[in-house]
């Protein structure tokens, strides 16, 4: 009986929260809010907030055309699915406040590599289409990944060191110790030494999600969305969905790394309200989801929408230079500070 | 006196390496390899040498604690090393011949299709 229950529970994690359904709804909603806000900032009316949902369902009703020049049909069709699935699984590993669905299975270095899989699926799918636009897009996408990797590595190493030296382990990569530390001592962003790392991480978010001004890889006006140039119908819809979910992933990764420790407050609030047992658990998970989503919205607005509205697209070599100098420099400051125990 | 052997052997090794580094003629490169090899052989033999020792050749029963002879192991090693040196020379010269056929030159500065 209990096996069935836990199997159902895990299935719930995968399919509902923080898995598919949550990713689907929250991701597309984030995307809609982003589009609406950018429009408002640019004094346009903008699409309705639910427009990404309409787009997705519309694309799912369209025909999928495989170009005659496509070198591998299988890769062309499978790439979107693998990308989406790996993103959803990745979302399961990122702890949501104190709620850990599967965070005991992977640490922050693993997350770094798991983040590559959706991008790689995108790249291989585009490469398999045989389009020269995809070739150019692939080149730029890969350079963007290289560019983001260095600051991201520095951020993760400094977090690992900061938490490790504070807890006396010396070093940790595991999410659960990072969460436990933040629950006990407050969010990491409150530490002065971690602020440059947090800023660097904020800079990485638009690069990883491929939004303005770091969207040279899919520059619509120039290389016709690059990797997606030949995609149509449901596969295109799934790529768009993955793109939206990646916003959620990156922002919730930021929340997990730097804004942890808020979940404890929510649980005590629920306890204050006089709930207990399963009901309390359910309510607090729901509340956590809502608070998480709100935080993600704020982060999206700050890093993606606002930046999008005020900047123009950078050239690919400028993107690379920006990340390897400004963002990496900031993260390096944090690493050195954390190293010397500040 | 054996010190001179040591100095000479290291001099030969260094001379061999110097030849390999500076000479642009492939045959001279091969000669450099051989010179370095001879240096090593000289070193090995010198290490096994005992002043006043006899040749380490004994039949059954002849060997007693009083017999004084040079260390036989380095001699065995030298033989092996000489054989290997001969192989190196043969192999590299055959490669030089083939290279001459293909590239039309034995100048190292022109045999550089693989680079970068």
């Amino acid at each position, binding site marked *: 009986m209990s096996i069935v229950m836990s199997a159902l529970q895990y299935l719930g994690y*995968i399919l509902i929260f923080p898995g598919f359904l949550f990713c689907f709804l929250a991701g597309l909603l984030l995307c809609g809010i982003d589009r609406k806000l950018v429009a408002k900032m640019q004094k346009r009316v903008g699409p309705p907030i639910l427009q990404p949902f309409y787009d997705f369902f519309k694309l799912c009703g369209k025909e999928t055309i495989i170009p005659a020049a496509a070198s591998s049909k299988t890769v062309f069709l499978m790439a979107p*699915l693998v990308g989406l699935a790996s993103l959803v699984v990745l979302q399961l590993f990122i702890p949501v406040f104190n709620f850990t669905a599967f965070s005991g299975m992977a640490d922050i270095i693993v997350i770094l590599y798991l983040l590559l899989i959706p991008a790689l699926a995108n790249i291989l799918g585009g490469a398999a289409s*045989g389009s020269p636009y995809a070739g150019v897009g692939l080149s730029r996408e890969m350079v963007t*990944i290289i560019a983001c*990797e260095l600051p991201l590595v520095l951020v993760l190493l400094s977090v690992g060191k900061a938490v490790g030296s504070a807890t006396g382990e010396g070093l940790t990569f595991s999410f659960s110790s990072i969460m436990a530390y933040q629950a006990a001592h407050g969010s990491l962003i409150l530490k002065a030494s971690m602020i440059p790392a947090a800023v660097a991480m904020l800079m990485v978010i638009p690069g990883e999600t491929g939004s303005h001004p770091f969207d040279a890889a899919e520059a619509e006006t120039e290389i016709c969305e690059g990797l997606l140039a*030949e995609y149509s119908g449901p596969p295109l819809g799934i790529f768009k969905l993955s793109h939206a979910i990646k916003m959620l992933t990156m922002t919730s990764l930021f929340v997990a790394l730097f804004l942890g420790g808020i979940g404890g407050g929510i649980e005590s609030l629920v306890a204050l309200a006089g709930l207990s047992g399963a009901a309390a658990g359910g309510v607090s998970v729901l509340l956590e989801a809502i608070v998480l989503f709100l935080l993600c919205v704020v982060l999206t607005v700050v890093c993606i929408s606002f930046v999008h509205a005020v900047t123009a697209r950078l050239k690919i070599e400028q993107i690379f230079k920006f990340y390897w100098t400004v963002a990496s420099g900031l993260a390096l400051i944090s*690493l050195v500070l954390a190293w010397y125990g500040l | 006196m054996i010190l001179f052997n040591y100095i000479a052997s290291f001099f030969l090794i260094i001379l061999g390496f110097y030849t390999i580094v500076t000479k642009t003629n492939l045959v001279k490169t091969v000669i450099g390899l051989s010179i370095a090899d001879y240096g090593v052989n000289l070193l090995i033999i010198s290490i096994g040498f005992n002043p006043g020792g006899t040749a380490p050749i004994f039949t059954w029963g002849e060997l007693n604690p009083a017999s004084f002879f040079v260390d036989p192991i*380095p001699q065995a090693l030298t033989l092996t090393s000489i054989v290997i040196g001969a192989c190196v020379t043969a192999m590299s010269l055959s490669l030089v011949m083939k290279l001459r056929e293909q590239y039309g030159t034995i100048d*190292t500065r022109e045999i550089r299709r693989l680079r970068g």
Partner: protein
Amino acid sequence: MMTSLYQHFPIFSIMVLFLGAFLIVLFGNVKPLRHAIALLAVTASLGFLIALVKPVMLNGEIIAYWMGARAPAGGYAIGIALEVDALSLFFGLLIATAVFVSCVYSIQYMRFDDNVGQYYTLFLMLAGGVMGLVLSGDLFNMFIMVEILTFAAVALTAFRNTAKGALEAAFKYLVVGCMGSTCILTGTIMLYAQAHTLNFAQLSAFIPGHMNTATVVAFALLYIGFSTKAFIVPFHPLAADAHGAAPASISVLISGVLTKSGIYGIIRLSYFLFQTMNLGTMQFILVFMGSVSMFVCVTMALAQHDFKRLLAFHSISQIGYVLTAVGLCTAMGVSSGLYHAMNHTLFKGLLFLAAGAVLQQTGTTDLGKLGGLSKKMPWTTALFLVGAFSISGIPPFNGFASKWMVYQSIYYKAVESGNIGFVFVTIIALVTSVLTLASFVKVSQSVFFGRLPKEYENVTEVPWGMRLAMSLFAILCVLTGLFPNVVTTYLTQPAANAVFNVANYINAMLGSGYAESVMGAAAPAAQAVTYVEVGLWQPVSWLLLLIIALLAVTIVAIAGKYDSVSESAAPADSKYDLFFGGEESVYSQVGGEDLFWGFKHNWRGYFNFMHELHSGIVNDYALWAVVALALVTLYMLIVF
């Protein structure tokens, strides 16, 4: 003393290879016989070593075998010895596996060549040489084996002597390789002058207490000698030339096996013979050379336009990881370094075999000329992708598992020792990994994806024997990635334990108590080896989750008309043409060496400098070797 049968297995596993080489010279003209002998020899060699897993790996036994039962008399080890501890067996298994797969591949890969009999002779000589090197318990025999393997490797590099650059590569390799061998011989003989023994165990007992200028110089010579065999920077151009020019089945051995023999030599030297690894200065030189190899070679690889040459540079980059991890002198470091060495053999073998398949079917490995081959060679593409994901460290393949352990051990070492230099090594290692991914994306796009050139319309898939060989490697790549705990428990940790228990090694050879009696208080005590992991990763659970998620996505997608694709029925239908901004579609392949222009542009100074530096002139490479030798000798003389 009662010797069990299995104590003879190490010498059997070497001799069957040499015997096979000899028999092929006699009967090599008969095609089926030749294949039968070669396959039998490599299978037997692998079988003998697998039979040793239980006593050596699991029971921790160390096999000391005296040829002709000439056990040491009067404290002097005169006879020739084989000594097989877990470290030797680990490398032996690695070699036997690679040789076996490469042999299976060769049967169909070499079928159009002349003089295949000589090929197999040299092939088995090479295999026997490496096997003898790692199982030997005698410094001079190690030198002999090094010479045999260098010779066989040079001859095999030049085997297809009409191929572009084969002779040139072979000559360069011969010159610098022989300089390395000369160094090894000089170092060996200098140690002999000090200790009057060539037995490895006896030397290990004697030398640490008797360090003087001569032994330090000998150490530097031996270190550089084995470095040329491992091809670490500054010897990497030779690797690039030799791997690129040799037949693919030989590139597998040169990259997967020869480099490992160099690493093995360095471990034996620094951990056993001189026992200097606990010194920070010694760790510095290994980690430094490792990180430089890692980074320089990955950037060199990014600039290549030849498939095999690119793989060759990556090979040295991965060896850099191994050397760095081994140089940490922590249990976790050595264990993860060996794990990565193993994985490197598997995935790099797979990649070279895939490159060989492409070369055989299309006649070129130039990235600028190929494209779209996945249409014609789907199996090779899939297998190549497994290898590419493994080397780039994409979970759940094996490269990730070992790299992840390497990062942990480096960063933990940094924290433990308080030395910020190791932090930068960690960063270099992580950045190298993503650059590796980038260059394999380049290969995928330039060779297997993108547009298919007209002249390759008639290319077909390679025969089943070659696919079988590649699949063997691919399966091993997946398995070792999915079950890292099994690999570490049964293979790498026993080997790492052996590295940290030198006294056992000495005593197994010369009788218990020998190490203590010779070395006195300096005898290395048996250590309780602990493995610190600072992160966690459960690949099987992750894969399970991914499969569930993928199933769910697929079901939903198929329900949503995902599978109702429309493909081109008539070739004239313009609907299925590629989008060209309204213009008429033309053949256009984006690929080749400059694919990552955005990255290379920022580093153009560095890349131009590197291109000038790797001039291709053998004198320059020899000069690098001499300079490296001089610097290492000077460094060692200063610090010891």
